[in-house]
């Protein structure tokens, strides 16, 4: 009896460990024929963007338990910074066909935008959140809403309420053939770049000293402070990285869609947050997973003609998850800890 229990328990654990990869393979396997290759690639690309933004939410939440409402708008500002850099600094008006030239420009674009956004993110943390570290919970939340609103309206003030064109540096005509369908190289590049960034983040968190400090701080701030972790520095770095990733997402968004608007951050922010919750808030791998799931749902909805209800579906998903499984798909931070 006891042995049987042990065996079934370990079998269960094995199944539990394999559940995620099996689930992902199943999910992709089912959605590919349903969506068709074009929409499939489209969903993957959108998913990469959501995942990058969701990472920022989940990291900040993991470390200071604050829903950084302004994060979606940091992403939006990132897309405008990218627009400004590529059109004004690089002087690009459309795509660049010279390959070395293109590679240099894109690299520069990523580097500059990530740097600028990381600074802006850290600045927001320093000015708006740090003074409220010990304040009642409501205070930083309200501040975050305020920051979000300020960012949105500053951008609206300077760039207007309409959609702004962003130069698509990578030519959209370049593509490869996959089983009869044309897959643009741009998509492959976008997905590749995002996945590379996420991978780098995972390595950073698990292998470096700072990454370890971040993990211990998220588990118990006071204890890790006693262990000699510089809390302020760690939180600052979290914001640097999270905002940098949002900046990268901004670049990617511009390259892929060729436009942006001041309202981008609000909607995408909500979706990216849903992605973070879906994956288990505080869990970086979960955030990436959640981002892809949300994108597939959204693309699926519009593929079947319910595009304008996509937002409603995503939001319902958020509520359902918060109510029935607040720890998300991959767990981590307990959802209803007081």
């Amino acid at each position, binding site marked *: 009896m006891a042995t049987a229990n042990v065996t079934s328990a370990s079998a269960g654990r094995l199944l539990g460990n394999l559940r995620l990869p099996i689930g992902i393979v199943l999910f992709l396997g089912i959605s590919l024929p349903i969506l068709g290759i074009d929409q499939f690639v489209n969903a993957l690309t959108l998913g990469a963007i959501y995942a990058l933004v969701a990472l920022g939410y989940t990291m900040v939440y993991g470390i200071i338990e604050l829903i950084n409402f302004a994060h979606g708008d940091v992403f939006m500002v990132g897309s405008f910074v990218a627009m400004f850099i590529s059109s004004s600094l690089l002087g690009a008006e459309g795509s660049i066909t010279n390959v070395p030239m293109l590679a240099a420009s894109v690299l520069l674009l990523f580097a500059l935008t990530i740097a600028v956004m990381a600074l802006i993110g850290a600045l927001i943390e320093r000015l708006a959140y740090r003074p409220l570290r010990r*304040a009642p919970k409501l205070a930083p*939340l309200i501040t975050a809403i305020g920051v979000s*609103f300020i960012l949105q309206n500053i951008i609206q003030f300077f760039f207007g309420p309409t959609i702004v064109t962003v130069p698509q540096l990578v030519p959209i005509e370049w593509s490869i053939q996959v089983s009869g369908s044309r897959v643009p190289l741009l998509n492959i590049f976008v997905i590749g770049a995002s996945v590379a960034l996420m991978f780098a983040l995972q390595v950073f968190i698990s292998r470096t000293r700072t990454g370890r400090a971040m993990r211990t701080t998220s588990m118990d701030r006071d204890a890790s402070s006693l262990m000699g972790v510089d809390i302020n520095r760690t939180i600052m770095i979290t914001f640097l990285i999270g905002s940098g990733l949002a900046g990268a997402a901004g670049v990617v968004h511009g390259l892929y869609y060729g436009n942006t608007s001041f309202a981008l951050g609000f909607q995408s922010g909500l979706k990216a947050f849903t992605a973070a919750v879906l994956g288990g808030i505080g869990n970086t791998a979960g955030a990436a997973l959640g981002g892809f799931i949300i994108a597939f749902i959204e693309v699926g909805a519009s593929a079947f003609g319910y595009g*304008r209800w996509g937002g409603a579906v995503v939001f319902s998903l958020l509520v359902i998850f918060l109510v029935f499984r607040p720890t998300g798909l991959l767990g981590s931070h307990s959802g209803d*800890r007081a």
Partner: protein
Amino acid sequence: MTRIADAVTGPFAPVRAFFRRHRSLGIFVGVALLSIALPLLTRVPPFDGIQSTNAWVNAFTTAAIYAMLAMGLNVVIGFAGLLDLGYAAFFALGGYTYALAASPFSGIHLPFWPMLLAGGIVGAIFGVLLGAPTLRLRGDYLAIVTLGFGEIVPITLMNADKFTDGVNGIGGIDKPSIPGILQFTLINPWPMYGLVLVLFTLVMIMIYRLEDSRLGRTWDAIREDELAAESSGVNTVIAKLQAFAVGASIAGIVGVVNAAKITIVTPDQFRFAVSISALAAVVLGGMGNTIGVATGAFIIYLFQSILLKQLNTLVENFNIPVLNQIDFLEFQYVLYGIVLVLMMLKRPQGIFPARRRMREFAPLKIGKGGLK
């Protein structure tokens, strides 16, 4: 009754002591005096130069509507400590309830007065609908869910064009009337002014009574220490749900009045900015202080709709080259954000702190010094 009986001093001590005991009467007299004084004030320079008295009265009516909205939100945020970021959705639902019940679009023409109640009930139902699954969650999750709800309602109103006429909204909404005595019109702002002020008075009296009741104490307890409140026998979910329902039903009622006042509802009127402006009023006035919040709303409204507008005409008149290009009205949104951030950083208890919130936010200063 159970409040701290602060010693009443000063020149008007007997008067103030009287109104402390009879607060409902005090609110009634106060609002009545104010409602007479404000229009009189607009006949005096410099106010008479800005706009006609009728336009002023119209502006005051809108300000009072906005103030009611802020007071309702204050029940949720200030009393129960729940951050509701989708408050405009309930306002929208109230407005559309009346629009569907009394407009050429639906072809139904129900009388205005019972619809006030209906708006409140619709608001409360949706408040419970949103709150019931989410109020067991931690507070910051609630904030994001309400934010999403506030986004979904206008989207739905916009997309369900069969029922709401989409982006065009529903126009030609019936004006209220007292059959045989008084027909409200768009030209004459006074009847609406009177109606809104009566409602304002009622809402304020009701909120003060709630604050002093068993339920109000329960909200205080939950806000301060949820676990202790549960261990005092409070069913916290139900109490929070009640706060949510009260706030939402006030927004619903105000939505009906607002729809009747401007005779058109469109999804665009209920964007996120409306929720944020109400939040800004609550934060500015002082969370938990009903009169403070109403005043905060009044200040913000007058600032944005009079001062910024004036700035536009002023700059235009003087034809200052650079400033000429700027529409100062657009600043109102940045203003909300700045109010939220600055107040939280510099004066979290608001301009007119509620006695309780003042103490709650007090440890902030010690915290800054690194003391735990």
